[in-house]
Every structure is written in structure tokens, then in C-alpha cells.
């Protein structure tokens, strides 16, 4: 039994949620039964990914089947186009898969309050989880695209049906933005499939082909835009605040925690590994975009009235660091970028859960509407302090390490851009503290004299994230060790091809 | 240049077909255009004679004029209510001009194309002195047997269908 799991682990992780979702559809309509069963269904892949983490070999690197890619499973799916169910994990996708399987149970915990159409909600949520893990583990470009698009449907309904007052606009805007991006990607995927001599979707073989293709730069740009919409990068970011404000708590946690990382993961997996020489030429372009994201996101966050919109813009700013790190083309910069993807996932999830807590109690999110909550809900205040300080990158907590690595790495190539981005740290500190002060400090707003403190369920969903934030700040080795060999491989690949 | 009788007759028949066409197109009264159509069909069957398609001319006379034109007249009479025979035909001037221009454009372009293309006479036109019926019959029952049978099925379906469509109105009147 154990070795069956061992050599089918990735397929199990990906397909258990969707099978569980189908089972849920046929369960009797009792709310608690459905909630608990979906919690258990999300916990199974989490335990499996822990086994994955334990068994991961941290010494080997490379983007080829024997070296670098581990837990590889290859089943033929459609012989006609030799599309395969080709799954594998390497240093880049391992942390992301871990983050995704970890956040999902927490989100199920956070969506305990959903009561309308609960079976539909949890089925769509589990389908979403399958899509997400699918993207991270797919090594077949077609499978990558299928799981990329499979997420669209559940997200549209989850934002659209269970969202806030203006959900319809947000849902359709999200759908159109992502669809444009992914259709552009589809064209390039087909073009690459056709220009590979033995037509194949296998990413590892397409990687070797990458250099030889004509229209290479055009493909790179189209793919980059497709992924940039998801990150989101500056000009394409307007869907994020609307989607976040309208989505229910659990969904904006997943949206910020995992979906944003898919954009940067895609860039690293496709743009970086398949077109290294174009990436080398374009690295300055990405650095500038990263800088704009950081500064622009931070300033916009400061101007927001709605707490969730503020956290959304802060996500844009933090993803800017990832972009900058990716563009630095130095080992520590790239390490910082991948670490920042993981750290921001944890911090953003924590922030949105906290916003959810305050929304359940006050049913509004105007930052100025609160005041002095700390005196009436101390536990909640302490955890929010921890989250906000992690967000502003306080040393000793996890975000600082990745931001410092990113800035350190980026400094060696683009000095002015990094100097400007480093000032972003100040603006982030400003709006975080200003928010803390307006909500938690100052005299108690009499409306919330009876503000109930955090309850057990919310606390359990926040605790693991809080521990991770502190532990990864002090000892980042567990996650860092995962990604180092792959990051070195990518860095050598690109700098090698660039000279 | 000597114009034999044949050519004179040909020209007259051509005029016989083209002239009523303008009536069909422009006349205000639907009855007049129906009659004009009658002459056009007569002219066409005349032309068939010139093309040694004698059977075809007869069929044209029998089916087109006997069948289709009669049906048209029936249609006009059945649906002609009291006053609007005149009114029905006038259409806005603007539209007719546009239609006219399109048709003229088509005409001139096709006209030149027809003149310019060299139609390759394949095997010098086997003349059928004693009528084409024998040859036509053989051809239809040998090569084109399937279309012949299918045409019968088609007519059967059309017969039943139009009975049902038209029948409703008749039964409507009774009950």
C-alpha cells in the first residue's frame, strides 16, 4: 500500500480533491457533514505533500527527467498528439505545491460561515485546488494549460455567487482578464507544439527547442503578458482589487496566497527555462516593471479606504519584489524571489483571514470606521500586529529575508532601480503602521465596545501561518534548501546563455 | 451580309423573351407581370428549339407554363383581396436605384467576362436530327437514374407537405 502511494503520489495529490468534491455532491445536504468532509479531503493532500517534502532530494538540480525533476509520473493520455499526464516536481514547484496544499485546509476552515449552496461551494473549491496543484506539478504543456484554465470556472462562480455586493462585475472582469491572457498563451503553446520536430508538448524537450525557434522574442512577450496578467504586473492589475474586495474571505485567501504565484511560477517555468537568451535580454524590462509594481502598489495601498483593497494593493507591491528578484539574474536574487513567493503566500493569507475575522464582526471594512480594537480584542490585535509587521518586512520575520535577498541580488545588476525599490520598504512601513494605528490603537470606538475576540476556529486557522512567519524568519533553511539547486540551475542557464 | 430567315426568327424570339422581363420587373400590377412572365416562358421554349432541345421546349411549355404559371395565377387570385393590388407593387425609389446599380455592375462585369473567355468547343456538337428524346430517355434511365428516383421521392414529400400546410387553412374555414 505504502509504495503504491509512494510512486503515485503526485497523481493522488492532484486528483483526490476533485474526487472528494464529486463525493461531496452526493452527500446529504447537512451543513456540518459537508464542512467536515471537505476539511478532511483537503487534509489528505496536505499530508501527502508533507511526505513529498520529506522525500525530496535537495542535492540534485536540472530540468531533465533523471536529474532535478523528482516523483516523476508519466502516463500517456492522448496518443494522437502524444499528450501525456507528465507530472514531476522540482525545487521551484515543491514549495508552491506545499504552500497550496497547506492553505486549502485553512481556507476550508475560514469558509465555515458559508451557508447558501454549500455543496456547490465546496465542490467548486476542491476543483479549484485540483487546478492549482495541477499547474504546479504539470510538466506537459497541454496539462499545464488545462489546469491553468480549469481554475477559471470555479473562481468565476466562487466570486460571482458567494461574493460581495458588486460581485458580478468583479467576476466577469476576472474571467475576461485571465481568459485573454490564457488564450494568448494557447496560441504560443500550439505554435511551439507545431515547431517541435516530433510534435510534442513535453516541456523538457520544448526547453531544448526554445533557442532554435523563430518568432522567439514574440512568443516570449506573449507568454510574459499572459503570465503578467496573473501576477499582476502594473498595467494589467486593475482586476485584482475588485476581485479581492468582492470575493468571500476564503477565496481571496486562495487568490492572494496561490493564484498570484502562478503567474511568476509560469514565468520561471516557461519564460526562464525555455527561452533563456530572450530572458537575458529582457531582464532589465522585468526589473523596471518590478520596481513600478513595488512603488505603485505601495502608494495606492496608502490611499485606500477599504481594508481588503489595501491588502490587495499591498500584494501587488510584494509581488513586485518577486519580479525584481527574478530580473536580478543573481543566485541570491532569484532565491529571494522564489522565497518571497512562498513568504508572501503565507503573509497575504494571514492578512486576508484577519480581514475576514473583522468583517464577520463589523460587516464593513472601512479602515476609519474602527478604532482602539486592541483594547477590546487583545489576542486578535497581537496576531494582526504580527501579520502587519511581517507584511512590512520586519527583520526576524519571514518577508524580510526574501525582500533583503531580492534587493541584495538585484543591487548587483541595477543599482538605481533597487535603490528606488528599497525606498518602497519605507512606504510599506508607513501604510502598515497607519492602518494599525487607525484600527487598533487610539481610543476605543464605542460602536465596537462589544467586539468579540478571536474564537477557536479562527485561531486554529491563523496559528500555523503565525508560526511559519516567525520560524521562517529565524530559520529559513527548510524552504530555502528546497529551491537552491534549481535556482542555481536556472541562474546558470540564463547567465550562461546571455554572454 | 445576308440575314437568313433563321436569324430573324432568332432575334424576334430573343426580343419576345427579354421585353416582357422588364414588365415583370417594373409593372405596378401583379397580374400584368404574371402575364408578362407567360410570354417570357414562351420565348424561352422557343429558344430551346434553336438549341435542338425539342423535348426540353415541350417540358418547358408543359411544366413551367402549365404548372408553375398556373399556380402563380391561383396564388394571385386566391390571395388578391379587394384594394391593394395597386399599392403592393410600389417600392421606394431609392431602393430601386440601388438595386438597379448593383444589377448593372453585375451585368457589365459578367458581360465582359463572358465575351473574353474562350469557350472550348469539345466535340463539335453532335446534332440530333430526329429529336433528342430518345437520347435523353436513355441517358436519364441509365446514368441519371438515381436523381430521377430521388426526384420522385422529393415530389411526394412536397406534395404531402404542401397539402398539410395549405390544408390547415381549408379546414380552418370549416370548423
Amino acid at each position, binding site marked *: 500500500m505504502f509504495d503504491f502511494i509512494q510512486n503515485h503520489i503526485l497523481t493522488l495529490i492532484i486528483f483526490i480533491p476533485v474526487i472528494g468534491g464529486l463525493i461531496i455532491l452526493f452527500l446529504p445536504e447537512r451543513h456540518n457533514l459537508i464542512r467536515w468532509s471537505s476539511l478532511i479531503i483537503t487534509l489528505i493532500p496536505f499530508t501527502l505533500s508533507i511526505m513529498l517534502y520529506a522525500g525530496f532530494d535537495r542535492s540534485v538540480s536540472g530540468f531533465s527527467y533523471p536529474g532535478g525533476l523528482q516523483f516523476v509520473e508519466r502516463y500517456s*493520455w*492522448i*496518443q*494522437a498528439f502524444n499528450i501525456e499526464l507528465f507530472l514531476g516536481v522540482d525545487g521551484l514547484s515543491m514549495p508552491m505545491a506545499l504552500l497550496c496544499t497547506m492553505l486549502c485546509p485553512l481556507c476550508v476552515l475560514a469558509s465555515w460561515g458559508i451557508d447558501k*449552496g454549500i455543496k456547490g461551494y465546496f465542490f467548486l473549491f476542491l476543483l479549484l485546488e485540483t487546478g492549482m496543484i495541477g499547474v504546479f506539478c504539470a510538466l506537459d504543456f497541454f496539462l499545464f*494549460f*488545462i489546469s491553468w*484554465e*480549469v481554475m*477559471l*470556472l470555479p473562481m*468565476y*462562480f466562487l466570486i*460571482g*455567487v458567494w461574493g460581495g455586493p458588486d*460581485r*458580478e462585475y468583479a*467576476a*466577469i472582469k476576472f*474571467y*475576461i482578464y485571465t*481568459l*485573454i491572457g490564457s*488564450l*494568448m498563451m*494557447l*496560441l504560443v503553446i*500550439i*505554435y511551439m*507544439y*507545431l*515547431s517541435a520536430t516530433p510534435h510534442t508538448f513535453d516541456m523538457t524537450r520544448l526547453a531544448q527547442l526554445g533557442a532554435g525557434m523563430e518568432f522567439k522574442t514574440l512568443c516570449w512577450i506573449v507568454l510574459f503578458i499572459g503570465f503578467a496578467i496573473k501576477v499582476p504586473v502594473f498595467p494589467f492589475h486593475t482586476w485584482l482589487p475588485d476581485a479581492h474586495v468582492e470575493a468571500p474571505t476564503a477565496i481571496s485567501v486562495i487568490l492572494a496566497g496561490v493564484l498570484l504565484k502562478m503567474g511568476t511560477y509560469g514565468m520561471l517555468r516557461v519564460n526562464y527555462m525555455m527561452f533563456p537568451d530572450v530572458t537575458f535580454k529582457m531582464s532589465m524590462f522585468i526589473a523596471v516593471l518590478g520596481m513600478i509594481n513595488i512603488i505603485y502598489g505601495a502608494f495606492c495601498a496608502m490611499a485606500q479606504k477599504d481594508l481588503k483593497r489595501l491588502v490587495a494593493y499591498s500584494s501587488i507591491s510584494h509581488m513586485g519584489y518577486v519580479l525584481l528578484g527574478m530580473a536580478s539574474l543573481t543566485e541570491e536574487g532569484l532565491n529571494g524571489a522564489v522565497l518571497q513567493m512562498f513568504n508572501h503566500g503565507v503573509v497575504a493569507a494571514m492578512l486576508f483571514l484577519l480581514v475576514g475575522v473583522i468583517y464577520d464582526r463589523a460587516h464593513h471594512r472601512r479602515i476609519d470606521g474602527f478604532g482602539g480594537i486592541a483594547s477590546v480584542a487583545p489576542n486578535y490585535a497581537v496576531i494582526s500586529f504580527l501579520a502587519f509587521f511581517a507584511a512590512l518586512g520586519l527583520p526576524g520575520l519571514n518577508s524580510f529575508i526574501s525582500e533583503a535577498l531580492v534587493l541584495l541580488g538585484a543591487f548587483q545588476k541595477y543599482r538605481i532601480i533597487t535603490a528606488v525599490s528599497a525606498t518602497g520598504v519605507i512606504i510599506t512601513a508607513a501604510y502598515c503602521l497607519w492602518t494599525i494605528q487607525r484600527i487598533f490603537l487610539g481610543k476605543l470606538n464605542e460602536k465596537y465596545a462589544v467586539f468579540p475576540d478571536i474564537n477557536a476556529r479562527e485561531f486554529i486557522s491563523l496559528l500555523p501561518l503565525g508560526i511559519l512567519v516567525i520560524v521562517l524568519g529565524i530559520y529559513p533553511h527548510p524552504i530555502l534548501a528546497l529551491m537552491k539547486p534549481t535556482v542555481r540551475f536556472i541562474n546558470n542557464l540564463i547567465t550562461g546563455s546571455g554572454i | 451580309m445576308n440575314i437568313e430567315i433563321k436569324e430573324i426568327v432568332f432575334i424576334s424570339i430573343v426580343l419576345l423573351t427579354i421585353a416582357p422581363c422588364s414588365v415583370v420587373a417594373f409593372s405596378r400590377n401583379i397580374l400584368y407581370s404574371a402575364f408578362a412572365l407567360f410570354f417570357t416562358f414562351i420565348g424561352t421554349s422557343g429558344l430551346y428549339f434553336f438549341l435542338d432541345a425539342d423535348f426540353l421546349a415541350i417540358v418547358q411549355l408543359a411544366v413551367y407554363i402549365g404548372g408553375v404559371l398556373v399556380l402563380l395565377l391561383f396564388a394571385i387570385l386566391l390571395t388578391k383581396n379587394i384594394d391593394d393590388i395597386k399599392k403592393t407593387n410600389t417600392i421606394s425609389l431609392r431602393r430601386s436605384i440601388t438595386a438597379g446599380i448593383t444589377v448593372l455592375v453585375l451585368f457589365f462585369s*459578367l458581360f465582359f*467576362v*463572358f465575351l*473574353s*473567355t474562350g*469557350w*472550348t468547343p*469539345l466535340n463539335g456538337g453532335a446534332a440530333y436530327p430526329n429529336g433528342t428524346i430518345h437520347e435523353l430517355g436513355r441517358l436519364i434511365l*441509365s*446514368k*441519371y*437514374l*438515381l*436523381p430521377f*428516383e*430521388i426526384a420522385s*421521392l*422529393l415530389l*411526394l*414529400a*412536397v406534395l*404531402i*407537405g*404542401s*397539402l*398539410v*400546410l395549405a390544408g*390547415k387553412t381549408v379546414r380552418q374555414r370549416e370548423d
Partner: protein
Amino acid sequence: MGNLESIRYFAPEGFLSVFIITFLIAGLLRRKTFSKSSFSCIAGTAGLFLTLILELCINTGYPDAIVIFSGMLKLDALSHLFKILCISSSILLFLFSYSSRETSDSLKEPMEYALLILSCTLGMMLLVSSSNLLMMYLSLEFLSLTAYMLTGFTDKNEKASEAAMKYLLYGGAASGIMAYGLSLLYGITGSLDYSGIHRFIAENNSGIILYISMIFIFTGLGFKIAAFPFHAWCPDVYEGALTPFTAFLSVGPKAAGFAVIIRFFYQIFTVRGEGDVLTVLGSADWPAMLAIISALTMTFGNLAALRQKNIKRLLAYSSIAHAGYMLMAAASLTILGIVSVFFYLSVYFLMNFGAFLVVIAVSNEFNSDEIEDYEGLAWKNSKGAFLASMFAVFLFSLIGTPPFAGFIGKFYLLLSILQPENPIYWLAVVAVINIIISLYYYARILKTMFLSRRQKGTALSGFERGQYLQYSLMAGLALFSIIFGIYWSPLNNISMLLENFIH
């Protein structure tokens, strides 16, 4: 192959004609039993089912094409597959008419209705396999005439006969122009057989007249598949006719139309070089014409659908758009293009019939086709939820999102266009833009059904026993839409039969 020997291969159509005649005689003799619409529908389905079985087992034998009835019909993979498609769409038409309350009430003469459907199917089967201009024109007329009569069949609402009249007049004009085009083509090449024409054009080059005759002929064909300049009849007829028949119209005759287009262009005007590279025969660059028409059809269909309030008109414009997508594959001048047309048609068969079945089910309840009547359908009761989720499956498949078959269809189309032999990049970009526009109006329906919580007054009745055929049919179509979305190699192997269609 002479007439007598080819009777053996003519089994399915032969059986169907004999069935039509016996059906007619039986109908006249026992007027009363046939007057119940359920009986005649079931009898019709049985007949078609037998024809389907005959078609399935008779014609799979021969690897390459057989020309029967001295050049009239050509039985090859194309005709075999498209016949199956047409017969099954007629079977579904019968089943839909059985389950649609609106149809069964308003049909005064179910026997004649069934008869016309059978003859319409026969017309399609012949059209699909005809390889002679006369045969093609005759069966096209046969199909069109029966379609005109079926459109006008119900006298319940006055829209039907008006739609039928428009359909007839527009169709008559189009087929008249096509006849003129055929005469020109005959004049140039001197023969009515596709192979004869092909040989003539191969030997001596033909001037502008060939292209002009092709334009005239394409008028008739374009009318059949409702391509852009010839689409005007489509919305009115779709809205006027009975919903089951509209569903049938949007799949059956359209598939037959595409079969004729493929056979006409790919059998006559193409030659298959080495390494399966197809090149255009004769001076007329018809792939460019098809590509332009496909782009126009797609864009017009999608943009016009954006503002539709009536669900049937919206589905009409969407079917125009899908015709545009399929034309794209036809214009790609590659073997995979032909395969993709059939693949997309079979996927389109599933999702379009499914969508119309839901429209029928909803119009059984509220007997209106306006989109705002679908308000909050998903949250009314369990039946509403079932209908809404089924409609969602079909709509997402029509949009082309991955877990559903629609996406694989579009994937095939894009694949065929971007083939390295002669990739048409601009058309791929137009297609992508159109998919995005189509998302907007499909999502609007989803929005009314799922997202808006404003409950319209009309309550929805529960699952009633009589309608189980309808629900199982819907579930079946949805299941196949999903299965072919995930694992579609069986369908792919079937459509790959078309590979050796041109030789």
C-alpha cells in the same frame, strides 16, 4: 459501378426510402393511431435507428472510396461519418419533439411531420455523399424544401409561417444563384462529375470565369451553413420555428452543408502532393475566400449576439459564429483541417443540442424564450439547479473552457490553422478575439441564472415523471461533453478516418 450493382451499397438510403413509403401508407390507413404525436415520433425514431444501424455496419468495410450509381454518389469516410451525424441529429429531433410540450400540442398532423423529417434526413444522407453536380443540387433542394415546410409546420404562433416564407424566398434566391453558378461551371468544364471537373481543370487552366462560378456556387452553400453574407435568414427562422426543429436546423443541415463544402472544394479544387501537402488546383484561390468569409462570419455572429434579449436568437447568432469557427478549419487547406471540421461538428452537436434541450425544458415551464425569465433559475429549486448546471456545462463548452469538449474542438481548429504548411496567423488572432467576445454574452446568461439573487416571481415545478426522457437525454449529452473534454481519443480516432479522404 452500374446502377444495379450499387444497390447493395445503397442499403441505408434505400431502406429509409422504403420506410418512408410504408410509413405513409400505414399513416393513411390508421389515421387515428398516427394522430397521437408521441406514436409517430417513436415510429420515426425506430426507422431512423434502423437506418443508423445499417449505415454503421454496412459501410465500414471498404477502406477507400466507392463511386456508385455511375458517379452519382461516392461512399467514403466523409460520407460515412457525416451520414451518422445527420441521422443522429434527426433522431434527436424526434426525441426533442416528443419531449417538448410546445411541439406536441401545436402539431395537428404528427404523421406528416414525421414523414417530412424522414425525407429531410434522406435528403441530407444523399447530399453528404453526392459527387455529381446534379445529384448535389437535387439533394440540396430536397433538404431545403423539406426544411421550409417543417419550419412553417405549426400554426400555433404566426411567427412560424412568416419564418418559413422568408426561409423559402431567401433559399429559393440562393439556390437559383447556385444553379446559375453550376451552369457556368458545367459550361467551363463540360462535365457534371466531380472527378470529370477535377480532370479538366488539372489539364487546362481556367480563367476568371472559374472563380466567378465558384462565387455563385458558394452562395448556395454559404446559405446552407449561414455564413456571413448569406446568414440573414438564420435569426428569424431560428426564432420562428419550433424549438426542436431550430435545434435540428442548427446542427443537421449545417453539418451536411459543411460536408458538401469540403467535398466540393477539397475533391475538385485540391491536389494532394507528397507528404500530405495540399495545393490549390486551378487559378482560383478559394482558401483565401473561405478565410475572409470565416473571419467575417465569426466576428458578425459574436458581435450581433452581444445584444440579444431572446435566447433562441442568441443561440442563432452563436451558431453563425460557430459556423465561422468551422469555416476557419476548412480554409486551412490541411488534412487536419478536414478532420477538425468533423471533430468540431460532433462536439458542436453535443453542446448545441444540449443547450436547446435546456431551452425547451425552460420554455415548457415559462413558455417564453426571453433571457430575463432565466433570472435566478439555479436557486429556485432542485430542478432549477439541475437545469441551470446542465446549461452551465453546455455554455462553458460553447465558450471553450478546458474541462469541456468545446475547448478541445477549438484546440483542433487552432491547431489546423497554425499548421506549418500554410499557417494563417491573422485568422488565429481573430478567432481568439472572437472567443473573448463570445465569453461576454454566454457569461451574461450564466450571470442571470446564477449570480443575480433577485428572484423573479414565477415558481418552477418539480421533477415530474413524464419528462424523465428529457432529463436523461440532457444528462447524457452533458456527460459526453465532459468525457470528450477530458479523454477524447476515441472521437479523435473516428475523425482521423477522414485522413485518406483526398487521394
